[in-house]
Every structure is written in C-alpha cells, then in structure tokens.
C-alpha cells in the first residue's frame, strides 16, 4: 500500500524532525517533541456559550481574575475561531480540527480529542484525565471520539455536575436517609471478603477506572451530594458548578489534564445584562480555581491554565437587546485567550493571529504527547524559549 506523501509524513520519514532543524522548528510540532517543559498538568477551560473579547480582554473590570491569571502569563486577543455552533466550535478546541457538527447533533466526533491523544501517547490511566461540564448531553460527547485508533479506552472521566449534583437527585437520596461513607473498619472487612472472591467475568473494556479511583469518586460524590455544589443557584449556576467540580477533581485526583466546558454565556441571546453577569460569575469561579492551584505547592509550579471561548458574539445587539452569534464579524470570529503556566511568558500580550485549533497541539506538546491528526500548530510565541 502506498502511503500518501504529506509534509508530516515526509518529516517523519526523513528524520528531519528528529534532527530538529532550526528552520523547520516553528512549523512542525514534531520538532518540539524533544524539548523539556516544566508543565506537568494542563487545565483547559472552554469558556463556551459565546463570549466576546469586548466583555473580557477589552473590559478588564468584568474579569479581574482572568486578568490576574494573565499577569502571570499571556493574553492573546487574536485567536481565530469558526462559528460552527457551540458544539462544533467547542469540539474544535479539543480536537485541533475544524468540526462541522450540527447544532443539535448528539454524536461523538470522528477526530480524536486532546484527552485521547494524551492518554494514548503517555499511556495514562483513566483517573489522570478529566472533563467537567456544565450540562447538556452534547458536552458528554467531548470525552472521546469514535476514531478507530482511539475512542473510549483513551477517553476522559466525565462529571456533568448538573445531572448528579442537583436538588431533585438530592431529594431522592435524602428520602432514603443520610448516606454515609464506609468506615475504615468496614472498608478493611470488605477488602478482606473481596480478596476471597473469584475474578469477575470479562466484559468489554470501557473507561476502566481502577478500584482506588472508583472508591475515591464514591466518597467525593457522597460528600458532594449533600454539599455545596448542589446548592449553587442564580445566573450562571451550571458554569459555577462545573468549575467547582473541577476544583475538587484537581484537589482529589491531581489529573494530568483537566478540561472544563462552560455554556451559560449563551444567555446573551436574550439579555446582554445577564450575559455580563454570567461572565463575571464565571470569572469569580475561575479565580477560585486559579487560587486553589496557586495554594498547592505541587500544582503551583507544574500547572498550565488556558481559558478561551469557542467563539465570540455578534457586533450589534439583536431586537431583544441581546447578542446572537451569526454575523461573522471580527467580534464573533476572534476571541481572547488567557494562559499561564511554567512554560508561558509572563505579563505579555501576544497579538499574533492564532487559532482555537492550535490549543490542542499546544496542550499536547506541553504534556509530551502528539496530536497527530490535528490541523493546529504549536503556539510557540506564547512559550518561553
């Protein structure tokens, strides 16, 4: 069989990439494969729902916490995006390819996601890669693709906070009494009995969390069901819950890769004021996320945080004093990204044109993985050389 000759194939075959020729180093992600980065963890927040730079980068008062993050890293006001509906545009961030998924489509994408690249390349177990979403069946499809060489066995763990930490489920639970966490003595007794049990029958491998992860997740869910997250209310509550879950996952599992997908900003269709309120609340929560990382000596010096919307919004108000997303104006097609971490420049604004599909290969690169099917490129201008 004859392999199609591509630039990437050529580089791979000829060994040019391995030699790391300086001329090509800014073009090929492979050329950076040998560079050592300080980043050990990436937190990628898709500030989805459609958020313009005008309300973030250009109005720092709305996002004091994101500006605080940027002081430790970079602001990129010229990240180019495609408006392919929330689902497709968000998926593009995670796959590094322009995705044309329909607005109501509820299927997994064909292209591997950042989660799958990192897990497969780094041979990571399931508990090291996570996605926290703010609701909606579509977002659950982001954890893995239908690609034959990747798929569920390399997927991310997912928690959709709206589905599990809500008052209706809480009511069902409380109707049976107060759930408890197993005591150490009970756990020891159960472990003893389980050790005597025959191996379970083999079933098709899914995400395959190890028993310890399952046990830790159980404890977390038990604590959280009656805890704060289910009680979060008001505008942007789903986003706030998703970020709150991410803070907990970082604390408990210290994942290599943590994705967060928000969505409440889409309230902008009906109300500009509510949209701004959602942005401010998400910023507040992102500040908590950032602070929790900075307060943890292990995470502080090894974690990269990247925050960007999937697209912006229209330049002008609609008839309801809201903002749609369909005019193809620069306000829609260019978004602002905030990023900081041990390998990023500090306190810089990078005005170079970038693309949202460059996020996936950049995150992969920082973690030592390769997004081989991505169309994006390493955002090398953001990094300390």
């Amino acid at each position, binding site marked *: 069989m004859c392999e199609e000759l591509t630039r990437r194939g050529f580089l791979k075959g000829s060994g040019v990439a391995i030699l790391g020729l300086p001329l090509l180093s800014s073009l090929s992600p492979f050329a950076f494969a040998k560079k050592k980065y300080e980043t050990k963890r990436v937190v990628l927040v898709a500030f989805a729902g459609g958020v313009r730079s005008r309300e973030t980068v250009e109005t720092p008062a709305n996002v004091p916490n994101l500006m605080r993050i940027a002081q430790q890293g970079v602001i990129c006001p010229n990240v180019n995006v495609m408006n392919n509906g929330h689902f497709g545009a968000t998926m593009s961030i995670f796959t590094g390819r322009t995705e044309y998924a329909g607005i109501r489509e509820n299927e997994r994408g064909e292209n591997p996601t950042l989660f799958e690249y990192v897990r497969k390349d780094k041979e990571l177990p399931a508990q090291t890669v996570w996605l926290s979403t703010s609701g909606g069946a579509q977002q659950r499809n982001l954890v893995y693709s239908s690609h034959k060489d990747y798929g569920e066995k390399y997927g991310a763990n997912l928690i959709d906070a709206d589905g599990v930490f809500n008052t209706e*489920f809480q009511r069902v639970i409380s109707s049976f009494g107060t759930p408890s966490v197993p005591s150490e003595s009970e756990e020891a007794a159960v472990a003893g009995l389980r050790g005597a049990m025959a191996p*379970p029958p083999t079933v098709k491998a899914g995400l395959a969390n190890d028993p310890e992860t399952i046990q830790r997740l159980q404890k977390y869910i038990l604590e959280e069901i009656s805890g704060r997250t289910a009680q979060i209310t008001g505008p942007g509550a789903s986003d706030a819950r998703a970020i709150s879950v991410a803070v907990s996952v970082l604390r408990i599992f210290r994942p290599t890769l943590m994705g967060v997908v928000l969505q409440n900003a889409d309230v902008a269709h009906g109300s500009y004021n509510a949209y701004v309120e959602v942005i401010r609340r998400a910023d507040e929560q992102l500040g908590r996320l950032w602070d929790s990382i900075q307060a943890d000596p292990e995470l502080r010096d090894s974690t990269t945080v990247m925050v960007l919307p999937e697209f912006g919004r229209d330049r002008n108000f609609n008839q309801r004093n809201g903002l749609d997303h369909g005019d193809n104006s620069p306000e829609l097609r260019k978004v602002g990204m905030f990023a900081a971490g041990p390998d990023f420049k500090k306190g810089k604004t990078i005005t170079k044109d970038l693309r949202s599909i460059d996020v996936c290969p950049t995150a992969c690169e920082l973690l030592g993985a390769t997004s081989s099917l991505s169309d994006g490129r390493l955002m090398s201008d953001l990094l300390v050389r």
Partner: protein
Amino acid sequence: MALLVIGLAAASFAAPPLSAPAAPDLLYFERHLAADLNQRCATCHSDPEMADHFAFEPLAGADRGPLLRNFRSVLGFLDPDDPARSPLLRHALGMEGHPGGALYASTTRADYEALLHFAMGATLSNRPPEAILPKRILAKVGEQVRIDGSLSGDPEGAELGYRWELTERPTGSASRLDAGEGGGARMRPDQPGAYNVTLRVHDGALWSLPTTLLLLAQAPDAAVVPQAPAGTPEAKRPLVERRLDPQRLRRVRRLYLDLQWRSPTLPEIEEWYERTHEEMVDAFLGSEEAWSAWFEQQLYYLLLLDQFRPKEGRLVTLPARLAKGEIDAPRALEEIVRSQYFNARNPGNDTFVTVVLEQCLGLVVQQRENKLLLEAGKKMYDGYKTALFRDKGDSQADFVRIVFAQREFHRHFLGRMWKEFHGTPMEVKRLDAEAARLAEEPGAYRALLRGWLTGPEYLKGCDEARTKPEIPYVRALFVDTLGRTPVYEEMRNVRNAFLSLADPTPIRLVMGRVLLESPEARIPVTAVDPARFVREQFVRLFARLPEGGEEKAFVAALKEDPRVTPRVVLWTLLSSPEYQSY
C-alpha cells in the same frame, strides 16, 4: 412495571372536578408579587418585543399599564392544572434550562411560596389549603392499611374536601383505594411493590397541591424453611442447597433483565429454575410486566420523558393490550408516535417529520439524498397533497401511516430490537427476511421474538457477561436491595445521575449504599444460617453459587469477624465488579 391508574374516591363534600382550577388573581399579584418579580425578572425580560418569550416591563410608578401587561404576560406561563409545574415557577427555580439560573434560593421560603400560591389562584382573602400525608408507609400484602390525611389544613380554617387517587401500583395489582370519613382512606395491597397514593384537598374555592404517599407492600414473611433432612430427594431440597446448573441460573437472570428490566427475586429464581427456557420465554411474552418494560424502552428511545411521558389515557394501557395480544408491537409503536405526547415533544413540521424519519426509518435527513423526503414529509404534514414513498397523503396522520407501512420501518425496528437483546447487529439476509415477514404479518413480532430468545445466538450470549444498561441497573438495584422496583420519580432522577458520569460505577455504588443503608432495606441483623445466607445472595445477585473458597471465606467472616454483618456481605457483593454485569 408500575401502571398508572386513577381511582377517585368520595370526599367530605363534593369537591369540584380537577378541571376547574381557580383563576390567578390580579390583586394578589399586585400586592405580593409585582414588585418582587420586577426585581427578579425585569433585568432580563424587560424587552416587550420578545415575541416568543416572557416579557416583563419595569414598573412605572402610578402607571398601572406595566402592571397589567406583566400580569397578562405571567398568565401565559402558568399551568392551572398543575401549578407547581408551571413554566414560570420551573424557570424561577432554574429548571428547563432557564438561562438566568435559579432566582429563588429555596422552595420553602416565603417569597417563593407567594409565587406558588398565586399560581394556585390565591386571593387576598383566601390562600390555598395544604394536603398532608405521611411520606412512606410499610405494609404487608393482604393486610388493610389505613391512610391518614386528616392533618391536612386550610390557613383560613375552611372545611376541606378530599380527593384520593391511586396513581401508581405494581403491575398485576387490582387494589382499590376507598375514601373514609374525616380525611382518611383505606386500601389492601394485593401485590408486593410500590403504590403511590395521592391526595389533594379543596377549601371550596382553591385546590391544594397534590401530595403523595409511597406505600410499600411486602410479601408476608416467608416461614424459615427448615434444613432438609439428609436423604431428601435433590429436587425437594431448597434451591441453594442443591447442585445448581450455572447455565440455567444465568438464563433465568438474563431473561429477567432483558425482558422485565430487573433482576429476579429468590422465589422467582426458584420458580423458573425448574422450568424450561422456552416455557419462561412464553410466559414472559404474555406478561404485562415485560411489555411495560418494552413500552418504557420505546418511550426512552423516542425521548418521551419527564413532562412528555404519557400519564393517562389509552396509551398507558398499551402494555396490558400487548400482553393480551390485542395489539402488535409495530402498531403499538405507531400508536405512540400518533399520540399527543409525541406531538408535543416534536412540535412543528420540521421537527416532527425529521424525528419520525430518523427514529422510525433510521434515515439521516441532513444527507443530500434524503432532503427531498424531508420536504415532501413536511408538505404532507402541513396538509398539502404530496407523494411520499410512492404513496399519497395530505395530513400528519397520512405521513405517519405511510412511514409505518415501509419495509424499511420493519427492518429498522427489528434491527433495533435484535441489537437490544444480542448486543450485535442482526445478519443482513435474516433481517431482510424477517422484516418482509413482519411487513406482511404485523402480529408476527411475538413469534419472531420467541425465535430470537430461544435461538442459539441468544443462548450463547447468555454465557457471555454484558454490562448492565442504566435503566435495568437502576431497577435491579432497587429489587436487590429493597425488594421492589423504583417509582418513576426515583427511576428518572437516579438514571439521570448515572448518565452524568463517563464511568457510572462510582455513582452506581453510591446509590447501592444509600439503598442498603435505608430503613426500607430488609436485611437481617445477623445471619441465622450463614452458609445459606451467603449462597442465597450469590444466587440472587450473581446467578451462581459461591465457589468453594468464596463460601468458606464469607461464612467464616460472618461467624467470626464482628465487623462482618449481613449488610457488609451484601455491600461487598453489590460493590464488586461482578454486579456491574449480567
């Protein structure tokens, strides 16, 4: 599977029909809500041009115009028949995807209560009464239970009328609810399982919200079966004391989970173990519980959930009619698609036609070759005479009729059903042949299904473990811990939580623990006969006897380790990877 029934009982005085709810009151709105809603809603909803949306104007001093317009606007978002589920209230609580999230911190606070009372028709001089029932009652099958609603009350002290309904009962139950004097009612459960008893009270002008009591009927305690004396013939010994055929146990369990969407109880295993697989298939294909599971499966497939789930009328009698052979499965599916619930779930020509073509024929309407079909279907739906699949029609009903007459519908339907039972696609030639037969003879589905379930592919599949799907898992967990299936609200919320994790194992375990720890779980404090207890749990939960080492370890732990109680044994089994599959 529970079946919805309505049995109205007499009241203290003649309560008006539920179809006569009180109208919302302008003066109450003005006094208690106008200013509050102005603060909460006007920020986002102040644009009067929001044609399809909820418009709410800022109040303007003495000008009553905005007040009256706001009142009219609010009326469009109330559901007088079910005030608590009014869109206005649900959105205010952050439900149904309200972009502004929850506007009220709690449903028990006075500000929210004022909104609710308004939706119920409160006036300045009359607030709604409140129906009060115990939350849960445990009862024994066959014993009469008295239900006390006399704690219900009215803020103004009005005399109350009582309306009792038995809104859910176990399949096969014919129990009736009889109203008594002074706000009481009586019933005698005739089947084990969950019964929902709902009460609403009326103060002469206003209805209360319904309140529901969960009555859990348990089979009378089985007498402790004495140990069979030595020399008793094998077939006469209790099941778990015999040498058991693991294949037969697996098949019993598989049929329960596949056809009834739950696990079997120990007596059921005992009953079916002795009979042939074919006998069991035949019995299940004539059982209402199995067709109830099929019905729920179709509702889930068509996303007729929550407010779109059929609650009453002829549609909810489908499982009984299917069990009796009064209707065949393809026609039952067509009846669902023709229902008001499907119509409400898929409003408008584009959505309705797209969903029918996609869900019933398996077409992807966005593909270029299918766009003409979509357009033709939409025209027909709109009443224009149009040809579709070489047939003509000019109505929504014609469109459905034509789609359900297609060979492709039968192919798609059978392919989907086969995959449910086997986990793999059906071989193409066989699918073509069976679809052709079903198109000719719609009543053949039951015979085809019998052939599948007794065929070599299915029987081979019984020997290979499969992960339990979410809904059967939820129902099996309730049966295995509480001895009953969940009522719909329990099932819906637990299922949604399970679907919120990529790996549902941890939340499944959490739910298992919650149920095991509940007072409703009937777990002995100590195992009188540890060996028998352990064997019973293995057979019940894993469809196998414990292996030698397992039995020895569990029995020894029960006898000697004070930490190990029957509850700990059950938790060990329920939380083991083996319980995740069947």
